[in-house]
């Protein structure tokens, strides 16, 4: 009975509080309402956008890594192996799977590239050379998978029927390299220049030209290539590689066993990375190679940095939250204080303190919901598409804005809770004051 009466009392307080809140918002000062909603919008943005950009810095990098290097599923050598022994079998399987859109097999080997050797007169100074990873690929398949031609900054991509051409990563070209203080990149290399590529290993005498060795690559397989293009990307693996056709790779290295070092696979629409990985594992390929989804292939330290950035963003957003809570507290307090007389009158004519407090809580809820809705429209309707179309140019990635629905909802709920509390306490403080003192404003 008592419970029922209290429930009824609460319902009446709620309905009176609702009426007061509606009227105070609807007929209150437009600019004050706009100011409070503006503060809530900015707080919402600071909570979502700052952490979203920080996470997006790395997310952009991961996305680029997936698109330009690893594909959706990435197969590499086992830790104690130098190649994937069943490359051919895997390739046959990939050809038969509807879950696979395309893939690229990569053969990699450490090599030395030397330039300017034809004009070299003084052998007492170091040659114009640099150590690289030479990557042999089926150019058409690599292009289909990673869109390598998009990374060209000079020249063009090798055609699949060409031989003796090379595409160099920009990191090894002095005029493009950001790392020239760490090592000496190739100086004065342009499209059309000849370079000498030497790899150590079994000498099968392919295109061996003794007079080109210069005496400093003895025992190595050496081949001369013409620079066809230069590629530059924020994905390091692209910028630090030298691409040749897989046929040239075999001639250069003498490796004719078709055992690759990497296979990057792009999944067909409608399948997840994990689904494809599971299918490949079901063929027992895991015993011969390391199969990872693109996300798993991300180095752990980068993942840790991502989490740290997210934490940092939350911390910065948290400061915004505290500032916003204080602001809302002050605004509601001043609002309640200036309305103290009317609060006293309402209490005087028998309106319960609960109804008046509820009216202020509902006003706070209105401000936080509308402010967050405006913020969400700005984030999802404006910032995300605009930044996706025009990524922020960071040195190591094209930064995007990441605002996944669930974390955003959690941030909204935190903001909602804090704001409601910040709106409730000043109202309660004023309501608790002596009724007559409030009416007489003393």
């Amino acid at each position, binding site marked *: 009975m008592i419970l029922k009466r209290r429930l009824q009392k609460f319902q009446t307080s709620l309905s009176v509080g609702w009426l007061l809140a509606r009227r105070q918002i609807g007929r209150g000062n437009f600019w004050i309402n706009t100011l409070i909603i503006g503060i809530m919008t900015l707080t919402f943005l600071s909570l979502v956008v700052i952490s979203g950009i920080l996470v997006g810095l790395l997310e952009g990098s991961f996305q680029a890594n997936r698109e330009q290097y690893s594909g959706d599923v990435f197969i590499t050598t086992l830790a104690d192996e130098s190649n994937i022994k069943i490359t051919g079998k895997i390739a046959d399987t990939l050809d038969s799977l509807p879950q696979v859109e395309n893939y690229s097999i990569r053969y990699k080997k450490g090599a030395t590239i030397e330039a300017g050797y034809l004009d070299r007169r003084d052998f007492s100074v170091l040659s114009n050379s640099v150590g690289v990873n030479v990557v042999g690929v089926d150019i058409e398949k690599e292009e289909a998978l990673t869109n390598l031609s998009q990374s060209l900054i000079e020249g063009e991509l090798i055609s699949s029927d060409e031989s003796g051409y090379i595409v160099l990563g920009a990191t090894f070209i002095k005029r493009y390299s950001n790392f020239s203080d760490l090592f000496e990149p190739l100086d004065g290399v342009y499209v059309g220049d000849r370079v000498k590529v030497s790899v150590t290993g079994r000498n099968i005498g392919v295109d061996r030209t003794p007079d080109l060795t210069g005496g400093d690559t003895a025992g190595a397989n050496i081949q001369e290539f013409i620079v066809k293009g230069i590629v530059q990307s924020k994905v390091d693996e692209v910028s630090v590689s030298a691409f040749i056709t897989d046929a040239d790779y075999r001639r250069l290295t003498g490796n004719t066993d078709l055992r690759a070092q990497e296979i990057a696979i792009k999944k067909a629409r409608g399948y997840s990375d994990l689904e494809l990985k599971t299918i490949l594992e079901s063929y027992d390929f895991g015993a011969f190679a390391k199969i990872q989804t693109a996300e798993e292939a991300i180095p752990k330290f980068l993942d840790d940095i991502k989490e740290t950035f997210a934490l940092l963003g939350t911390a910065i957003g948290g400061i915004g939250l505290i500032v916003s809570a204080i602001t809302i507290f002050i605004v509601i307090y001043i609002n309640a204080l200036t309305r103290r007389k009317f609060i006293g009158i309402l209490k005087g*004519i*028998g*309106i319960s303190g609960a109804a008046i407090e509820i009216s202020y809580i509902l006003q706070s809820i209105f401000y936080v919901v509308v402010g967050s809705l405006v913020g969400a429209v700005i984030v999802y309707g404006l910032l995300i598409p605009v930044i996706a179309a025009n990524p922020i140019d960071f040195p190591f990635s094209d930064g995007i804005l990441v605002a996944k629905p669930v974390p955003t909802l959690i941030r909204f709920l935190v903001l909602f809770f804090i704001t409601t509390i910040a709106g409730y306490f000043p109202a309660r403080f004023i309501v608790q004051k002596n009724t007559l003192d409030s009416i007489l404003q003393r």
Partner: protein
Amino acid sequence: MDMITVKNLIKTYSNGEVETRVLKGIDLTIKEGEFIAIMGKSGAGKSTLMYQMGLLDIPTGGSIVVDGVDILNLTEMERTDFRLKQLGYVFQDYALVPELTALENVTIPLLMEGVSTEEADERGRNALVQLGLNNKESNRPNQLSGGEQQRVSIARAIVQNPKILFADEPTANLDSVSSESVLEALVSLHKQGQTIVMVTHETEYTRECDRIIYLVDGKIDHEKKQ
């Protein structure tokens, strides 16, 4: 039947170390249906006396029984509920909520009592009509004259049929025409049996009162029956 019984009522205000005794032992009885005026010079304690009887303030000493209820034994929530159901107030400065329309100002105590919106609106409209405020229900306080605002305030005070209507200098801010109309409204309510306690310092508006109580320096100096 006694509607209000006040015995040895004392009210002291403290301001730091300074204590001011405003009411110094008031004894007073008000009967049901009486129209009482409390008069006195500024600072005599007339408003303070009304606030104590109207449960807007808590006395320092003495006792007040309203409609058989010892109001000093009530909790804060019970006092609020008692004010809602048993008492009505008319304040000197009308005390209407600026964001609410005339009708909403009148109906809000009914809604708080749990009356449905439809019934509250109907009773609110009747109260406004009774006070001659036809077609003013949608007006907000700033769209009404002083006299109209005060009549809305009276409508709000009587809409839930209170046992006692307290009016604190209801004509103080009004011109003579508006003052007369407000007084007429109070007289009309009194004729319907409403108990009214009015604080005023204007003798001319006490002519319809049953009794006038004169306060001097926190004590009843004398009273005059009419």
